[in-house]
């Protein structure tokens, strides 16, 4: 048993729902008790879908156990076919029905429906949401992909991976379509998002595949490579460098020259990063956590394109631990691979970052620790489905990332200024801002107690050293404090004095 306060991923059948809901003409019959219908609201509330997901739940009850749950399942499949007339169906069990061993595959086969009915085996006690999405997509592609076309235009590809409830998938897709269009590469099929089962039958007409999210589409793309001779591109077009590498990779497969597209203006990120007001971003300590694709990409953009220092990199996706470990090693740190929220919290507290790039859960951790944070990865929250176009991928995505990473720090800067001026007569804690009349401020709400830090031994500051630290300019004070404490800890100094402060400064400025 695993104690879980928060989960990063849902169970694998949620991944199957993300695929089914993304597609048209596909229906999913899920053998599950009534509570499992909560999953509808992920799509209708978080993503604001205007239709129920194409899912029929059997919603069996205790009184049905042992007698006729299998019959309930068969009836549900037959009724769903009659009502929705889908081109294809997927059938499977959620965690509880898995224990009943009713055999959805055999039961649905026995119905002899005139459409493909694809059974899913999604072990709910071993696997999780992204694996479920990947497995579902793979099974669909295997069952429906048809034969490879005999002649294929070289500059024609499929885009694989975007799903419902994917982090910015909707907007990424628009960017990537635009890039491919600029290069002169035709898009044959996008799947799962917006595809029908019949569209999957046309996958073999493209020369190659573009995998946007390996978490969802790598397995299917590998199978298509083996069986259909379609190579695939898995370069993540996140950040200017990532997008450039992506353009070069797809152009090479399509036999086209990427130079004209690369010569265009592209993103504002490089200039914004080089402009002088960005100098204060240099070496900011950043902690990155998320799914593998977004975490690795964010780490690269943060370090190589914005000039931050990476102090932590991790993922909850064990299936992609290798990629994340490799990237972390590149930055001389060790990757954190865990889906234990408490372990992530401890790691962030210990790393003392100045910025956290994570999921909605790291946003909470960061808020508690008083660290600025930006969200870069699922699990999805209603805020992660903005009304505006807000991609992560492509050149516009790079613009979005610059703003996303830097704005929380600007807020941080503002807070530093507030702290710096807080003792001014018109600007102290007891007074409301002058533009609001400057009247005495009402009692503020209770302050959330900071989480226990996990830093090894506490270091003690002498009063003089603490006073001296306050003379250090505010924008480097956090770093000075951190470095001094590290210096003291490494030398097991019982007390930080003014001497220690300057010894540490000399030590780290080498």
């Amino acid at each position, binding site marked *: *048993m*695993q*104690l*879980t*306060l*928060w*989960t990063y*991923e*849902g*169970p694998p*059948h*949620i991944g199957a729902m993300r695929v089914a809901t993304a597609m048209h003409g596909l229906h999913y019959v899920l053998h599950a*008790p*009534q*509570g*499992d*219908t*909560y*999953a*509808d*609201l*992920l799509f*209708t*509330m978080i993503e*604001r*879908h*205007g*239709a*129920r997901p194409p899912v*029929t*739940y*059997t*919603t*069996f*009850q*205790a*009184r049905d*156990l042992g007698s006729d749950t299998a019959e309930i399942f068969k009836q*549900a499949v037959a*009724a769903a076919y009659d*009502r929705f007339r889908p081109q294809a169906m997927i059938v499977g069990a*959620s*965690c*509880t029905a898995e*224990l*009943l061993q009713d055999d959805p595959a055999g039961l649905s086969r026995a119905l002899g429906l005139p459409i493909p009915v694809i059974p899913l085996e999604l*072990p*709910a*006690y*071993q696997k*999780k949401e992204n694996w479920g999405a990947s497995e579902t997509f793979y099974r669909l592609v295997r069952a429906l992909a048809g034969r490879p076309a005999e002649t294929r235009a070289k500059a024609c590809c499929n885009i694989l991976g975007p799903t419902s409830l994917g982090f910015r998938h909707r907007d990424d897709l628009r960017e990537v379509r635009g890039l491919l269009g600029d290069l002169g590469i035709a898009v044959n099929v996008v799947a799962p998002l917006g595809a029908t089962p019949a569209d999957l039958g046309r996958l073999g007409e493209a020369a190659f595949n573009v995998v946007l999210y390996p978490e969802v589409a790598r397995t299917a793309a590998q199978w298509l490579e083996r069986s259909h001779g379609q190579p695939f591109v898995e370069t993540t077009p996140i950040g200017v460098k990532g997008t450039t590498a992506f353009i070069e990779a797809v152009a090479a497969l399509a036999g086209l020259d990427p130079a004209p597209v690369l010569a265009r203006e592209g993103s504002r990120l490089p200039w914004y990063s080089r402009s002088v007001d960005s100098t204060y971003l240099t070496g900011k300590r950043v902690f990155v956590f998320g799914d593998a694709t977004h975490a690795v990409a964010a780490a690269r953009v943060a370090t190589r394109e914005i000039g931050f220092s990476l102090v932590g990199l991790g993922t909850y996706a064990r299936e992609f631990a290798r990629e994340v470990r490799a990237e972390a090693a590149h930055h001389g740190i060790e990757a954190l691979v865990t889906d234990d929220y408490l372990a992530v919290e401890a790691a962030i507290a210990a790393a003392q970052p100045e910025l956290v790039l994570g999921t*909605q*859960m790291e946003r*909470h951790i960061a*808020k*508690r620790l008083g660290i600025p944070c930006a969200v870069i990865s699922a699990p999805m*929250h*209603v805020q992660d489905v903005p009304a505006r176009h807000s991609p992560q991928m492509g050149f516009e995505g790079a613009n979005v990332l610059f703003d996303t990473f830097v704005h929380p720090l600007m807020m941080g800067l503002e807070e530093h200024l507030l702290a710096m001026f807080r003792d001014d007569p018109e600007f102290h804690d007891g007074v409301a801002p002058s533009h609001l009349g400057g009247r005495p401020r009402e009692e503020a709400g209770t302050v*959330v107690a900071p989480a226990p830090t996990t830093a090894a031994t506490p270091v003690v500051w002498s009063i003089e050293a603490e006073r001296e630290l306050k003379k250090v300019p505010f924008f480097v004070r956090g770093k000075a404090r951190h470095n001094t404490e590290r210096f003291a800890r490494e030398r097991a100094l019982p007390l930080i004095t003014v001497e220690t402060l300057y010894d540490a400064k000399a030590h780290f400025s080498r």
Partner: protein
Amino acid sequence: MTALASPLSPAVPCGPEIRHERGQRAVFCGLTGIVWLHRKIQDAFFLVVGSRTCAHLIQSAAGVMIFAEPRFATAIIEERDLAGLADAHEELDRVVRRLLERRPDIKLLFLVGSCPSEVIKLDLGRAAARLSGSFAPDVRVLSYSGSGIETTFTQGEDACLAALVPDLPRSHDESLLVVGALADVVEDQFSRLFADLGIANVRFLPGRRAADRAPVGPNTRILLAQPFLTDTARALEDRGATRIPAPFPLGAEGTTLWLAAAARAFGISPARVAAVTEAGRARADRALAAHRAALVGRRVFFFPDSQLEVPLARFLSREMGADLIEVGTPYLHRTHLAEDLALLPDGTAVTEGQSLDDQLDRCRAARPDLTICGLGLANPLEAEDLATKWSIELLFTPIQGYEQAGDLAGLFTRPLARRARLEG
């Protein structure tokens, strides 16, 4: 389980037309109750023993990402637990130890059963007794089932409160026990009204803290504040308490009848009731009047969800003048709801149970002015241009009593007012 199989109650001779429907349901399971119960019992922790789905449900259903460190968690059953490689009880002990070390402020721990824990027949009652033994007196450990194969949505609260009953001290004193989680502010209002009526010994279940345990015995009268407390009422009756039949305290009329029923049971005169409730009734009438124009003649459709549907329908129909197209409810406790059912207009279509797609067909055909439904259905119906009120808000918002009658009406008028603004 509930009394759903019972035949039509003879107490309702020519009231609503009740029919039963079976099929796909679109409702939460009883685990959802944790979201409001953990706010109510402030030093209790709810540990679901279940699957990743259970953890995901609680996290998603309530949008609970707003709470920094919640007082609920899931012990996720893994492959090795199922394969017998790990002793489930030892595993549970380990998880509970880790949890309590981290949260020394917890005084009451609920082990909450789920669909998978029920199917594999994990005996949480035994686990609770064992753990209670090791952590007493600092922490009491109780268990109940919130599983979706046994409980629907608000039945989770019923199961939780029923689990508290054996733990209540025994007393022969005359007392009134108000049963069902209410917002603290509502409890305080009711406490003042009962005191003014002259009912001295009034307690609430659940208490606000674990140590707050109301005594119960043969001279305890129970007044249900929520319509979904089948098992809790039975457990209290088994301990000798007597239930006071009453409509539920929703709306001004419901509140008055509810208070009057309690007063009658304690031999308090109707004149006293009228005098004590006069100010509250007047305020509620004023508040409701502001909303009535928006609801009178409006056609309302209830999908089954919270089991509050029958008293809400009674309120909308009698106090706000709405027309009831269909009142769906997951389960109908005909005895507890007899007074509310009797107040529904003759011929009201009450549907117990659900067959989702058929019910959606009926709703689309009727094109109601307002549809009360679960969160999963609200946006799809809105996209079909049907105004909706999602019912989980009726559990999170204080809606009982005189002072909240206007707020209750406001929950129903807001979607209509919002549409009017956007279309204007």
